[in-house]
């Protein structure tokens, strides 16, 4: 979707103003700690994947997305996912009062403290051990398709319609755009190099390139 999350190339957000690395805390308020932890823990139910999480955050009103701090966007996304997955009802979310405990088999899915380290260490690889023929080879010139889906996509707006060069084939990965909508499909994933002058025109500074990871469905031959 062409949402507020797709920030590449936008102007007007002001200076970066980084905090000094040596004394930047990991969390800046207690509620951020809690927001982070409940988001990860709730994910252990397996009711949504990482692309669904991203899409839940980016589906907010664009003005809300930009006004919110980072973890506020996480909470907005988590509330959406909890209700859509049925883990929490609208009424429970509104009142803060549970209508009852979750069924036993659902409660059993909640990650336990002693399982956290092993679960984090394992992660969730997105490679798929299936044969998918590569549509493109290293060195091929490609164009990013001019797609404007209302659903999730990992093809950023600033790249669409532009020409690039296949730099590397990362093999078969779960295609994020469909995974966000519940379909697990493997596609080849490529690192594609774009010259800054092609992306940004005359104003681009010299000798800059952008590398973007894109799947088969995002690309067409340059021809």
């Amino acid at each position, binding site marked *: 979707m062409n949402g507020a999350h797709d920030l590449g190339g936008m102007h007007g*957000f002001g*200076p970066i103003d980084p905090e000094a690395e040596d004394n*930047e805390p990991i969390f800046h308020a207690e509620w951020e700690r*809690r927001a982070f932890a409940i988001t990860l823990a709730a994910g252990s139910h397996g009711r949504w994947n990482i692309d669904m999480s991203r899409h839940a955050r980016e589906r907010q009103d664009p003005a809300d997305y930009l*006004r919110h701090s980072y973890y506020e966007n996480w909470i907005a996304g988590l*509330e959406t996912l909890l209700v859509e997955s049925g883990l929490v009802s609208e009424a429970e979310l509104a009142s803060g009062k*549970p209508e009852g405990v979750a069924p036993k088999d659902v409660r059993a899915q909640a990650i*336990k403290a002693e399982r956290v380290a092993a679960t*984090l260490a394992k992660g969730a690889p997105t490679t798929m051990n299936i044969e998918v023929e590569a549509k493109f080879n290293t060195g091929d010139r490609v164009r990013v398709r001019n797609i404007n889906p209302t659903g999730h996509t990992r093809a950023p707006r600033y790249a669409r319609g532009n020409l690039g060069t296949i730099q590397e084939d990362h093999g078969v990965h779960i295609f*994020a755009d469909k995974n966000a909508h519940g379909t697990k499909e493997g596609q080849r994933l490529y690192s594609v190099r774009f010259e800054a002058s092609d992306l940004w025109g005359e104003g681009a500074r010299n000798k800059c390139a952008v590398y973007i990871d894109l799947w088969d469905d995002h690309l067409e031959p340059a021809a």
Partner: protein
Amino acid sequence: MSKDHDHSQGHDHDHGHDHTEPPSDIALRVKALESLLVEKGLVDPAALEVLIDTYEHKVGPRNGARVVAKAWSDPAFKKWLFEDATAAIASLDYTGRQGEHMEVVENTGQTHNLVVCTLCSCYPWPVLGLPPVWYKAAPYRSRAVSDPRGVLEEFGTSLPGDTEIRVWDSTSEMRYLVLPARPEGTDGWSEEQLAALVTRNSMIGVELAKSPEDGKAS
């Protein structure tokens, strides 16, 4: 006003509150949501504490610094990093969530690399921990791809005009770690000494590794 609040809030929020005022709306909302999830049995309170402790105290950029220092010291390890970064980094026990598929990109005299996620906040957690606020915020995400030299200058990093800058937009589950150039004057240094020169920002690519003089000063 505390600096902490300044950076945890959106850029145009009202910052006119301090610790003596009641909790913010978002703090209350998160507290209510946590209570609801715990009461329903959907999250285990002890697991929450482990999750927070892990990313606040255990996983962070010292992991990445160890990877970099080893790459500077051990040519076979460096070669392995470029061939299969995920496996090479796993040999140091840094694996898993948000680092399932690692790529290492090397800064040289000719090339400088910079990592961003324009669409969200993708970042290699096992080696760098959770991303800093600026990495997740709109100013960096919007301009890193369109004006990387300007962004680097904001971090005080000025590179020769003939150095090619490569910006890596993390749009998939590939996670990028920058291997900074080894500072001059570090011949014969141990991995521990070298690791002390490797900053988080140098592994995102917005800065260079510290020089031996800077390392002493800090």
